[in-house]
């Protein structure tokens, strides 16, 4: 089973993912590719607590993600891939992660960032990454929850 959703979300596993995207996509597994979290067992257990027991959760470093994705695929899991930044998403796509639709849910505000939606702010390097996605056939959709209409990144630019 291919990925049911690839999502950039600086909060990784949280309410929107567990309560909205998991039921909406009928996902039964979450793959969280994040170097910080992979090195922090405590934070991992905290994030895992709120996930229903029927949903498998895989935490891995970015450079381990491709085999983890392949394993989940072989097991027939319906997986949601979560990364914390556009750069991480780009690294995974370059390494061969199979998604052509990329959802952006949350990218928090910081000085110098441009507001794209109330919960998504782009830094200059995010624009670069998103440009790379566009030139590689990946559609980028800014959409916090499945029930709101997504805004395509291109439309935002115009």
């Amino acid at each position, binding site marked *: 089973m291919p990925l049911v959703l690839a999502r950039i979300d600086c909060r990784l596993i949280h*309410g929107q993912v567990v309560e909205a995207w998991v039921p909406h996509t009928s996902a039964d597994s979450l793959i969280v590719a994040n170097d910080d979290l992979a090195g922090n*067992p405590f934070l991992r257990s905290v994030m895992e607590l709120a996930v229903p027991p029927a949903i498998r959760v895989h935490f891995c470093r970015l450079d381990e993600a491709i085999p983890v994705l392949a394993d989940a695929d072989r097991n027939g899991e319906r997986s949601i891939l979560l990364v914390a930044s556009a750069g991480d998403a780009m690294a995974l796509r370059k390494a061969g992660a199979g998604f052509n639709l990329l959802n952006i849910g949350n990218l928090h505000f910081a000085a110098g960032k441009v507001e794209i939606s109330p919960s998504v702010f782009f830094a200059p390097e995010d624009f670069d990454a998103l440009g790379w996605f566009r030139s590689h056939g990946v559609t980028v959709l800014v959409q916090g929850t*499945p*029930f709101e209409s997504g805004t395509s990144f291109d439309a935002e630019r115009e």
Partner: protein
Amino acid sequence: MIGAVVVSHGAFATELVRAAGIIVGKIEGIVAVDISPEMSVEEIHDAVEGAVRTVENGDGVLLLTDMFGGTPSNIGLSFLGTHRVVVLTGVNLPMMVKFPMAREAVPIDELARQLQECGHRSIMIPGDMLKKKAEKKPEK
């Protein structure tokens, strides 16, 4: 579609609906009624009735109130004889988040029971859960 009216002391109702919207997106067919201390019983009754009318369309209306025994709940109960409503007390955010998807599948009485169960189960002490987990499976 089953409608919902959230009734609370203070602005809790409005903010609860707003908070749920952040998590699962804007919820249709839901109205918040905030009750302030200067409102008379008649005013509160009228506000809730207006809200019920706004969201009712044949499948019933869930009255979600902040606290059993409080005014929102007591006034909510006064609609039992006149409207197709079910009063559910002690509403919390997990119940609100569950509501839009749960109402698609079941009639109002069953929906109320499911949300009650969800509300109960959602109150926990995560620190204890982590401790239990650590005892069961020591970190490698």
